[in-house]
């Protein structure tokens, strides 16, 4: 399921006209061989002295796509974005926009705009003049500029603040001005560098949905760079996880979360328990793995490439594990342990269970708090059983 269709966001998206669910689900240009990409990175490499920030990277972005680039700091995601804006030159490879090589085009001649992490609002200009800055550079007539500025202010709900200076605005308002300024020129592609980093949590959530609305309303292509996985997963049609200058995995957020192809992605996006083990048998689509800590684990996986005896990792998301006091009936996919820690987070409770004895491994189990109750069913030092479905486990290559 695309997180965009999640019920939680519905009230905030009241103004969206048509039901977006069906449209969104069908929107997968990356799977369509006939689709023309808007942006193509072709074997792009960028080095800073001895550090390779971007390493022989290829990537295609499609029109109207909301693309998120996720990675830890220093993974090269900002460099990739800055190369697209024209502030950095690749050492090798080329960047195409609408099929045209723009590698050597200076930033002021690229139909790409960027919203800076610091917002970079001009402190000596009013809100209106900030938004008009790009339009003035195009030499548009005065009335058209005024009209567009008013339009933009209405779009980001800042009507009436045209005469204010940036230092007279709140953080959220400044972010909106930065957004309006970067959208004023109707760029083919909008780059957003950590757009929510300076906002508090509540504001961040509502702004995320507003940004998604804006993007679908204006029919623009967005590329957002972030280290915040919730942000990436909420907003993006497709996301890429980047590490050491390479794209580790690219796909829709649900695919990244539910079917990570590497241990790095599995651990970077969301919480996960990793069990070490060896492949014991492969029968049809059921893989049986002998793990040191949790005994035999059976997984429903495409397993053609696995060899008997091969060392692999099994990944288990905390919310896919069931916790019980009594031993479950199933034969495999269960392990006994002792509760070491309980973290109550309101909407759910994260329980840490020690399996395999006192020197074993701590496994995280997420319990959704679906009913109001003050009495908790589990307590510290309880002896409990963990169990999970055959579909829950992930095979991760070492």
């Amino acid at each position: 399921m695309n997180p965009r269709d999640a019920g939680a966001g519905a009230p905030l998206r009241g103004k969206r006209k048509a039901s977006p669910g069906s449209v969104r689900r069908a929107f997968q240009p990356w799977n369509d061989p006939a689709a023309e990409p808007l942006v193509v990175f072709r074997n792009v490499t960028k080095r800073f002295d001895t550090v390779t920030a971007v390493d022989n990277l290829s990537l295609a972005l499609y029109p109207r796509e909301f693309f998120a680039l996720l990675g830890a700091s220093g993974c090269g995601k900002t460099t990739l974005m800055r190369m697209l804006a024209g502030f950095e030159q690749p050492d090798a490879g080329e960047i195409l926009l609408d099929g045209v090589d723009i590698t050597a085009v200076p930033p002021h001649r690229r139909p790409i705009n960027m919203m800076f992490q610091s917002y970079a609002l001009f402190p000596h200009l009013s809100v209106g003049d900030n938004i008009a800055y790009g339009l003035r550079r195009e030499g548009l007539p005065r009335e058209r500029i005024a009209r567009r500025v008013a339009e933009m202010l209405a779009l980001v709900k800042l009507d009436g603040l045209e005469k204010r200076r940036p230092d007279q605005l709140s953080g959220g308002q400044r972010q909106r001005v930065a957004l309006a300024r970067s959208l004023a020129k109707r760029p083919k592609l909008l780059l957003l560098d950590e757009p929510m980093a300076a906002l508090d949590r509540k504001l961040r959530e509502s702004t995320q949905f507003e940004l998604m609305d804006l993007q679908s309303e204006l029919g623009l292509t967005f590329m957002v760079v972030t280290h915040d996985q919730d942000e990436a997963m909420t907003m993006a049609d497709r996301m890429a996880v980047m590490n050491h200058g390479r794209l580790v995995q690219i796909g829709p957020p649900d695919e990244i979360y539910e079917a990570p192809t590497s241990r790095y992605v599995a651990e970077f996006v969301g919480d996960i328990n990793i069990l070490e083990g060896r492949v014991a048998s492969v029968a049809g689509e059921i893989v049986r793995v002998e793990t040191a800590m949790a005994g035999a684990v059976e997984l429903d996986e495409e397993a053609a490439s696995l060899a008997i005896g091969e060392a692999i990792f099994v990944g288990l998301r905390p919310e896919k594990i069931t916790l019980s006091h009594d031993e479950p009936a199933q034969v495999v996919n269960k392990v006994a342990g002792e509760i070491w820690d309980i973290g109550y987070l309101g909407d759910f409770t994260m329980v840490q269970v020690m399996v395999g004895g006192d020197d074993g491994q701590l496994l995280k189990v997420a319990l959704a708090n679906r009913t109001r109750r003050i009495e908790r069913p589990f307590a510290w030092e309880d002896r409990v059983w963990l169990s999970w479905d055959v579909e829950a486990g992930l095979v991760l290559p070492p």
Partner: protein
Amino acid sequence: MKRLGPGLIMALVAGFAFLYLPILALIAYSFNASRLVTVWGGFSTHWYGALMANEPLLDAAWLSIRLAFVSATAATVLGTLAALALARHGAFRGRTLFSGMVLAPLVMPEVITGLSLLLLFVSAQVERGFWTVTIAHATFSLGFACIVVQSRLAGFDRSLEEAARDLGATPVITFWTVTLPLIWPAVAAAWMLAFTLSLDDLVIASFTTGPGATTLPMRLYSAVRLGVSPEINAACTIMIGAVALVVIAASLLLKRDQLAGA
């Protein structure tokens, strides 16, 4: 705030007295009615009137002002460009040498600067006068202008310039519409500093000037050699006033700039 003890206050008063009493005495005696410099003969603005009739002194003052204006403008433009190069282009080849050469005149003894420029002008067979002094002043005040502008650029958010480029501004337009409006207090302060440096200078001007181009400090100095007259006191008072005004304006500008930049 910590209060100063009586000993420290005494030291402070003595220090300031040593610095400013002679100047105050000079200002006071410029209003002396007596012709004798050291005898008080009552209050009078007579010498200011006489000053207005002193053609050579007025000519020298006008020359000094024009000279300071041109050399300060040249020094500010070049100093700002040097500061931009130093602040913007990272560790380019020869950066240390460049910065050292720009800033060397700050610590170079004026006699040496003056003498070497004189040698240059003589060997190049340039006729000495207004323009040679202007070039000399621009050369030595360039370093001061550069330092003032560079300190402002050090705290400058580069993403502002990138944002301008991103929105379609060429590098030149970016400089005029974003960079300069944000650093102009420092540029103005640099200009004022260069202006007063040129107005005050005696040594370098003496070396590099030629016939017909006598600056105000040179005129005053030669007049004093024949004996101090109350007229000279009046001229000096006006000069002190002018310089103080410009320096105070420059420091206010820089202070405002720092507050805005913080």
